[in-house]
């Protein structure tokens, strides 16, 4: 049999963000179809609370949901020798490894080997980082993490890791790692595996989540609420030359077709002929999807444009103050008119604080698409007035919140259901670092 006719690995995608559902990953492992499971749980800003936790306690700083996610998963995975690769390590992958070993032990599994991969934290290397824009003023650089590739994760797996836990890595690398050692020694083979990783990294977004079929198309009905509630997450058989079969486990709700795959291929990609990952620059223009069965797609044609000269760094800067985001509701006859009145009152009141950046609009009318919103066809029976304000300090934030509450006594009739939140003003900065400065290492733990 030609080497390319048999898959070298079959990997599932069990999470696409830190708060993602836990049960789809368990279902994928229980299907027995996969030999590895990737869990992408670390958005850019998810690192910020993790960095703060580590500063308070040097043993913390990994994903606080680690136990919630892995407790139902580890027994199923260990029983089937299905390896888990995840960035649940966040700002502290070494301690995440220790914690997973402890958890494995508690669950009754001994001699399980956990590899924590460190080296993405580049706060000690800031002299070598080139930022896209200068860090200014009172801003405070909270942390800086480089996006690492799949090579060391692959090494950990080849050395017998049952779980590989990382901090900041490229999402696509998590899913390419189990294939790497078994791929043909050509750039396009790894390009294929990384493209699979890019397709899998958002979990249910490849299998019909965040997706609406074309309005005029009768080919396939939209998913029902029950199907969304039980949405299956994707898995991929990767072949040695980098082509792959992507799909759902049998009898699992979801949609995997050319449209869902194409949307995810191009998701958050800017130049599709030049998608930069730590391992390779990818060219997606030759990628093709072929429907080979129900919810089964064959993908081929990903191309490599060689390794990038630098790695991307995400830097986190915290500005003083808050963005406050407050709403007040109006219901019943005349709700829209009273809400518009209230918005007008708020504009007059906040004009008392010149220089404060604010945005005032109506939830249910124009709070999402602003002046591009569609016209109302009928008056809504309930509306919320929304104000966001960039506040320099707690005093300013409190003042805006109080102004909204004051509408309940001194504004149009029936102001109700007030809610508010304050968000830290964290900015993510892009930077670049040459790979030669980065020292990566595996820290092993055993149950």
């Amino acid at each position, binding site marked *: 049999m030609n080497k390319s006719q048999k898959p070298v690995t079959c990997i599932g995608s069990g999470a696409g963000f830190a708060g993602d559902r836990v049960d789809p990953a368990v279902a994928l492992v229980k299907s027995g179809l996969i030999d590895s499971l990737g869990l992408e749980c670390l958005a850019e800003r998810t690192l910020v609370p993790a960095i703060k936790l580590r500063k308070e306690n040097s043993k913390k700083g990994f994903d606080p949901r680690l136990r919630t996610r892995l407790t139902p998963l580890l027994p199923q995975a260990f029983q089937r020798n299905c390896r888990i690769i995840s960035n649940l390590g966040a700002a502290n992958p070494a301690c995440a490894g220790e914690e997973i070993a402890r958890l494995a032990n508690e669950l009754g599994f001994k001699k399980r080997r956990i590899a924590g991969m460190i080296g993405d934290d580049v706060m000690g290397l800031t002299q070598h980082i080139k930022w896209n824009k200068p860090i200014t003023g009172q801003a405070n650089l909270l942390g800086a993490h480089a996006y690492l590739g799949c090579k060391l994760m692959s090494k950990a797996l080849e050395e017998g890791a049952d779980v590989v836990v990382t901090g900041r890595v490229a999402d696509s690398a998590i899913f390419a790692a189990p294939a790497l050692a078994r791929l043909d020694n050509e750039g396009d083979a790894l390009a294929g595996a990384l493209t699979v990783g890019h397709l899998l990294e958002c979990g249910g977004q490849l299998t019909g989540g*965040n997706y609406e079929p*074309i309005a005029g198309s009768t080919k396939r009905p939209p998913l029902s609420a029950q199907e969304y509630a039980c949405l299956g997450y994707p898995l991929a058989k990767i072949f040695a030359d980098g082509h792959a079969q992507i799909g759902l486990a049998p009898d699992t709700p979801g949609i995997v077709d050319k449209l869902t795959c194409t949307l995810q291929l*191009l998701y958050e990609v800017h130049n599709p002929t030049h998608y930069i990952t730590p391992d390779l620059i990818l060219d997606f223009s030759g990628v093709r999807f072929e429907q080979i069965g129900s919810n089964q797609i064959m993908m081929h044609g990903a191309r490599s444009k060689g390794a990038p000269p630098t790695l991307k760094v995400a830097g986190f800067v915290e500005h003083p103050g808050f963005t406050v985001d407050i709403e007040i509701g109006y219901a019943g006859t005349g709700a829209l008119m009273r809400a518009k009145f209230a918005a007008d009152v708020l504009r007059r009141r906040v004009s008392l604080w010149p220089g404060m950046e604010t945005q005032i609009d109506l939830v249910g009318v124009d709070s*999402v*698409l602003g002046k*591009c919103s569609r016209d109302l066809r009928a008056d809504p029976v309930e509306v919320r007035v929304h104000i966001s304000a960039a506040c320099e300090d707690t005093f300013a934030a409190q003042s805006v919140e109080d102004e909204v509450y004051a509408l309940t006594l001194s504004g149009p009739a029936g102001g109700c259901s007030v809610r508010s939140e304050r968000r830290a003003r964290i*900015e993510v900065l892009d930077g670049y670092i040459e790979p030669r400065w980065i020292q990566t290492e595996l820290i092993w733990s055993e149950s």
Partner: protein
Amino acid sequence: MSVGMRVGDIATGRSGDKGDILDLTLVSETTEHYKLLLEQLSPQVVKELVSPLLKTEVIRYELEGLNAMKFVFPTALPGGVYASMHAGLHWQKAAIWLLLDHELSASKLGAPLDESN
């Protein structure tokens, strides 16, 4: 001739973001629909379409073999997603409706769309 045909009647789409960059993807089922969208959604048309909301340039990428196109808006999300002044977080997830709800110009609609006449 169909009156009031939307982009969303012949394409599906998704919004994405990285830093202050917004990106919108459209995919059609047929090459005819893809070509019609290419003709009607020039970068200039899209720039004007979103201008009440977004002050930004527009770059279009064409992926003929996938019947797909991308529109990239380099400075559409000043300060990134978390500096947004919209209600709640992630308003940009709905930004694809800026394109999906755009009505196609009837005078330019070709034969493949005349079936509902």
